[in-house]
């Protein structure tokens, strides 16, 4: 008896699984590294920038990339590399934390709409569809006009625009699971709706959403750029990635490196979160998990 007990391994905890999984999956490792770089830049930006990102130096304007200015300089002579590092702060707050908040709200409301009573579902759907039917930029402009252009307003707009999308996806997935045999079986055991939703439905709907949300990060930064261009985003001279892209776009013939430089951090962030999201989904799904 004791022998067989010893042979049976203890069920590994989530954290152990996560660590083991990371060690085995180079893609997840890469994702984690890329995300860590962005977060590191965001936290320590003022101490690691090689130049003052706000300092104008007209004689140095529009210099191509070199050893002194890795990503070149912009039309006002500011070091683009420094501005990008500084911009990761805005990207983290506007792009990433807002997507995170929108994801949490959207998933919660979607679960409620999908599992809850019919009238609540109808009501929430009406709400989501009304918000969703507004063109994003128009909605952003309206809110920015009402509340004034600031980082907070921008975050509010992004949350408002993204939440219905996640809620809708969650609701559809929840509806199909609500009547599945395994949910019925757990209901027949007498489990509370809260337990059914949190333990048995949520893990089955969250996987694809993580990936969709990762891929929404660049579109949020693009939205920020668009609103900034229209004067309703983050007021200058804040160095957001969107603004760098926008300025680079205006000068694409004279200084093509500006657009390229503005795109690189976006690519790093998106790939990092997508890889991380994918491996997180695989970890949540035993059918895709390679190690047991």
């Amino acid at each position, binding site marked *: 008896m004791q022998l*067989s007990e010893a042979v*049976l*391994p203890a*069920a590994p905890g989530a954290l152990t699984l996560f660590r083991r999984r990371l060690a085995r999956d180079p893609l997840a490792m890469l994702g984690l590294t890329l995300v860590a770089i962005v977060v590191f830049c965001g936290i320590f930006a003022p101490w690691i920038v090689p130049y003052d990102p706000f300092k104008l130096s007209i004689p140095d304007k529009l210099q191509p990339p070199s050893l002194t200015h890795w990503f070149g300089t912009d039309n006002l002579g500011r070091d683009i590399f420094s501005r990008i590092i500084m911009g990761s702060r805005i990207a983290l707050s506007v792009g990433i934390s807002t997507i995170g908040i929108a994801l949490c709200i959207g998933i919660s409301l979607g679960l409620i709409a999908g599992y809850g009573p019919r009238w609540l579902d109808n009501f929430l759907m009406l709400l989501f569809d009304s918000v969703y039917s507004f063109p994003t930029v128009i909605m952003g402009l309206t809110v920015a006009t009402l509340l004034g252009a600031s980082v907070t307003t921008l975050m509010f707009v992004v949350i408002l625009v993204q939440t219905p999308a996640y809620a809708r996806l969650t609701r559809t997935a929840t509806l199909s699971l609500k009547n*599945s*045999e*395994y949910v*019925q*079986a*757990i*209901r*027949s*055991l*007498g*489990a*509370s709706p809260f*337990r059914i939703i949190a333990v*048995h439905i949520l*893990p*089955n709907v969250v996987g694809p959403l993580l990936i969709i949300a990762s891929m929404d990060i660049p579109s949020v930064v693009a939205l920020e750029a668009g609103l900034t261009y229209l004067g309703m985003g983050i007021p200058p001279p804040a160095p957001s990635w969107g603004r760098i892209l926008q300025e680079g776009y205006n000068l694409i013939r004279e200084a093509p490196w500006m657009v390229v430089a503005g795109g690189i951090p976006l690519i790093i962030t998106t790939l990092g979160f997508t890889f991380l999201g994918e491996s997180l989904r695989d970890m*949540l*799904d*035993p*059918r895709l998990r390679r190690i*047991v």
Partner: protein
Amino acid sequence: MSLLSVRNLNVRYAIAGPVKAMLTGLSSRFIDAVLDVSFDVAQGTTLAIVGESGSGKSTLARAIVGLTPIASGEVRFAGKNPFADGAAGRAYHREVAMMFQDPVSSLSPRRTVQSLISEPFIVHTMREKDLASEARRLLALVGLPKDFASRYPHQLSGGQARRVGVARAIALNPKLIIADEPTAGLDVSVQGEILNLLTRLQGEFGLTYVIITHNLAVVRHVSDETAIMYMGRFVEKGRTAEVFPDPAHPYTQGLIAAQPHPDPARRRTGVVLTGEVASLRNRPPGCEFHPRCPSAQDLCRTIAPRIVTEFSGRTYLCHYPVNRPAQPARP
């Protein structure tokens, strides 16, 4: 005293909202999935409910467990109505377990076998139990090796998944188990193993079963009593040992005759059912079985039969039962 008794149970589903029903001129916006069903199951016995797809047998099971609301009628379990104050309480869910049709998809896909079979303890806040040792005990009871505890549902075969389902059903020592098609989707040899397992557990724990199936071989093998369901009604009910050799209702006779037989010389003799089950939205007048009945007469097309109870306890719903005197229609 009977453990479970059901009286005049009706279950209906709304097929349209009130506004839509008004606009489209539906005569009724409900369909009756279960109509006027009454039966008793004694402690330690097995009742088999047989019927074609759509006859309402699964709905009946779900209504008894409390997954589907009851329109009218009464369920009594151990003398008490579990739905007296709305939803069934925890005590009822602890004593009545249900097994669902599909062995694999009735298991939560992202949980291990151990977590699946200890779910009842967690739901019923018995966290002080040693869940790992309870899981090992239950696995041993249903004849699965210990190391299955760490497997996931997609790693199980149909028969293994069914055993896990049985383990989950017996986890809390229930009195009554309602099994919806316990042998569906399994190989014949595995079907036999599962039925033997159910019979063994019944002997060990004094379990009472309500087994829902369309497989007459299963019925014969395990049940004490048999009820035949057609369009939501019990058309015949009696002791299994008496119903099979001597069916009273032409539908029962047809079902028994339609069974495949291993002897080629004896294949397909006697009555064979023809036609399709009528629509539940548009029930035939009179006896609802008359469009398919080989012995239907004018009376059957106009007047619905009443329940006839024989001395042996057999009940049936027919004007012209097989090998029995005709039942005159009482006004």
